[in-house]
């Protein structure tokens, strides 16, 4: 048993003290029209994606005035503006966890799942050429017993803004580890 797995809890005092901490700031490369088109192709596959996501001539005539990205688009995939060192490697255990970035010892869990997502959108859409910055804080730890053992729920909150400082969305992610 590791030092973090004590008395039937995954949450160490050090983890508890780190709640509220800002642990990541990511800035995207400028979004390209192809990034948006490929995203929409993947999500709408095998049907063609709506022209708003790939046809500039069509999109220019809509209320959006041009191509916009789907609200769920991720501009941080495949490297951020900070370069390769800032790319979380999903195959490297713990590298994407808040504790790793807050200098806190990781809980000794062995599996993780995406527990849920909550997003509020402002109506400011992501567009080709936009540079998005996301600032992420550790918001909460909770835990409860589950079918696969004691489950640790970690909630983080990210605020996404564009290059003009306009808030695009606020996203809360719930990570489950066990």
């Amino acid at each position, binding site marked *: 048993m590791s030092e973090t797995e004590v008395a039937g809890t995954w949450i160490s005092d050090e983890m508890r003290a780190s709640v509220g901490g800002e642990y990541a700031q990511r800035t995207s490369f400028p979004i390209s029209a192809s*990034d948006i088109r*490929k*995203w929409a*192709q*993947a*999500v*709408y*596959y*095998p049907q063609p994606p*709506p022209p*708003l996501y790939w046809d500039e001539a069509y999109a220019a005539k*809509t*209320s*959006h005035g041009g191509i916009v990205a*789907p*609200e*769920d688009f*991720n501009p941080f*995939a*495949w490297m951020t503006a900070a370069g390769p060192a800032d*790319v979380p490697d*999903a*195959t490297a255990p713990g590298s994407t966890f808040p504790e790793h970035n807050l200098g806190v010892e990781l809980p000794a869990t062995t*599996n993780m*799942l*995406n*527990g*849920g*997502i*909550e*997003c*509020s*959108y402002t*109506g400011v859409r992501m567009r080709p050429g936009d540079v998005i910055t996301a600032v992420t804080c550790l918001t909460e730890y909770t835990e409860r017993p589950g*079918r*696969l053992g004691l489950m640790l729920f970690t909630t983080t909150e990210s605020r996404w803004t564009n290059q003009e400082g306009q808030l695009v969305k606020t996203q809360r992610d*719930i990570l489950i580890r066990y």
Partner: protein
Amino acid sequence: MDVAVGDEIPTYERMSSFQHWNRYAAVNHEFVDIHMDDRAGKAAGYSGAFGMGHLQWAYLHCVLHEWMGEDGRIVSVKTQFRSPNLNDLRTIAHGRVTGVRDVGGETLVDLEVWTETEEGTVMAPGTATVALPH
């Protein structure tokens, strides 16, 4: 648009398969073993590999836009991922209207949204609010 509490919006349906997951992994840089390898899915306690929660999240946005059109605005969406989208089962995204409000000149519609398998297992239950196009 005429909208009333209790209305069900048209579903958005996609197969759950490596064809879909691999395309999504490629755009979201989401190369996680449980989405790529049946052995990893089994090691995590499931019957095999399963699709990304983020892909179900995307489908919950698609079902809203396919219904209200591209001029409709998604105000908020929240969901929990409770059951995995396993291979070879159709994923069906649903929405049911739970409220209609006029706020600041906009018509806001609250919905219960969820994804379920073709066998009826709810995978990602949640809620959403949209602003209908003028």
